[in-house]
């Protein structure tokens, strides 16, 4: 991405306009409009199958949309591979099932993309990787393989791996759903730390405590639409919509 076509920072970091997506005949995303400012932290929630994961997977084009516009940091996602790869360099993603590369050590997982995509010298890539591994508090595991780590540790490595690309935006796709309960906190703490540093974040999660403390905005989706969005306090204490209220009553005990 060249500096010339980048737009001023007043522009939103992510812009979704009239986004529509189908799986075959099935209409999964219906006219989604969303604008995310730099440094904003958004939590997406909703019942399963509501399209929240699909929405964030469209932002780095793991899913292709059929109608509407997606503009990320001034670059519009089209069929052009150059634009797609430019966007992916700026957007980090953390998956539900970690998706670490099992044949590489933790350190190699972290240096792979900086070396092959950012063309960074190995030594520098390793310094950066160690920096972020320290930040997620597992530098001592750098030379182990992912299979030797616990789920929580693996997810923290996945976060460090994404951070090594120095992304401007981080997407989290249910990062704690596959974890044992006692490991959820270590991952959430890492994410909170990230939020405090001013990272632009979109999280699909059901951790409502996390949403309350971290999010600027909570978005509730259902059946492929954005039903309600609000700042967290108002969202939880005074939901405006029946569906939202029903959903909240089901997940908050």
């Amino acid at each position: 991405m060249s500096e010339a076509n980048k737009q001023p920072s007043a522009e939103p970091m992510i812009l979704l306009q009239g986004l529509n997506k189908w799986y075959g005949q099935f209409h999964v995303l219906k006219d989604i409009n969303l604008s995310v400012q730099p440094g904003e932290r958004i939590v997406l929630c909703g019942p399963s199958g509501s399209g929240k994961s699909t929405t964030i997977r469209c932002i780095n084009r793991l899913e292709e949309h059929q109608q509407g516009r997606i503009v990320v940091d001034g670059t519009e996602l089209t069929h052009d591979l150059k634009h797609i790869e430019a966007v992916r360099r700026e957007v980090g993603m953390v998956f539900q099932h970690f998706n670490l590369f099992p044949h590489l050590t933790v350190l190699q997982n972290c240096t792979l993309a900086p070396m092959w995509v950012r063309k960074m010298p190995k030594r520098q890539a390793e310094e950066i990787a160690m920096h972020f591994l320290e930040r997620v508090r597992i530098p001592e595991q750098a030379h182990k393989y992912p299979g030797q780590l616990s789920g929580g540790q693996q997810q923290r490595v996945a976060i460090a791996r994404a951070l090594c690309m120095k992304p401007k935006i981080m997407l989290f796709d249910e990062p704690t759903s596959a974890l044992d309960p006692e490991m959820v906190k270590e991952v959430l703490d890492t994410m909170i730390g990230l939020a405090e540093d001013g990272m632009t974040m979109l999280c699909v999660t059901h951790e409502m405590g996390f949403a309350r403390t971290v999010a600027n905005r909570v978005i509730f989706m259902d059946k492929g639409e954005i039903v309600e969005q609000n700042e967290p306090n108002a969202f939880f204490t005074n939901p405006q919509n029946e569906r939202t209220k029903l959903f909240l009553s089901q997940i908050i005990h």
Partner: protein
Amino acid sequence: MQTTANVPRPGGSVWTDPKARAWLFQILAVIAVVALGWFLFDNTQTNLEKRGITSGFSFLNNSAGFGIAQHLIDYDESNSYGRVFVVGLLNTLLVSVIGIVLATLLGFLLGVARLSPNWLISKLATVYIETFRNIPPLLQIFFWYFAVMLSLPGPRQSMGVGEAFFLNSRGLYMPAPSPTDSFGLFAGAVVVAIIGVVLLSRWSKARFEATGQLFPVSLGAIPLLIGLPGLAILLGGNPLQWSVPELTGFNFRGGWVLIPELMALTLALTIYTAAFIAENVRSGIMAVNHGQTEAARSLGLPAGKTLRLVIIPQALRVIIPPLTSQYLNLAKNSSLAAGIGYPDMVSLFAGTVLNQTGQAIEVIAITMSVYLAISISISMLMNWYNKRIALIER
């Protein structure tokens, strides 16, 4: 078997102590095996005496007295049975090696084609795989030999490619190279070029790690590999002399010939084994979780690098063990050569030599030992490899 009902007494009886029973059972089994072995050995001794066959391996030194259509080492009728064995073994290895190389190439191509997003390509690959893996290899060998190779035109009506290659019912004739005086210079240039490429790729890797800049090795390697040997040819003249096959009378003389038996056997084994390899390749690639691709792509790795750095290293771990057993199968199936008279180890040694000498036990034992040795060494290699590449987990 009513062990649970009895109260075990101190010292216990043999029948109620599981350990003692296990010992007894094992001793009985060993005795049974030894007795069976002795029974067979004794019968064999008696039968051999009756037939007047002296056992032993001295027959290997006797002169064979028959010709062999294809021999990779010098051979004539006066040579010994021992040499016949070596000729057969080399022919077996020749077919196996050619077959393995070709089947691997074809199999990987088909396996990838089967996973292609292109509907037509993937269906074609499926049809190929389902057709050829469900037809017995011997039948395929017969088809290529009797229906195709032997119905090719005779030498005088050969199908020719240029003035150098001729295909007819006696085989495929092609020019044979022989070295001239300047061959040494040429070979030296090739070796230097190869060393150069190795050094270049090492340097390139070091540079990549130090600076992050990739130097495309092929950019330097191709001029090096073409240039140096080319220079050697310019300086020293042609390094190889080609003897081109020529039709004289009823047959071709000069050049190399691939006999039709070899072609039919290689073709059939390649086509048959490739279908199985394709399935191994497909399931190996499918075994890599789709999340791996997504993770690599979301880090910004382009499709080609995702394949090379993430998918292939993981898929190979799954593919290689069944791939080796396919290689073993191919080597074992090369013994089907006996069906069309390709002079491999089984048809020469376990066929002709056995018939001539009557030394059944020795001949079969030698033949089986060779296959066993190949199988065992490959599976040992495989175990070592599996241990080395196993993904490290808790």
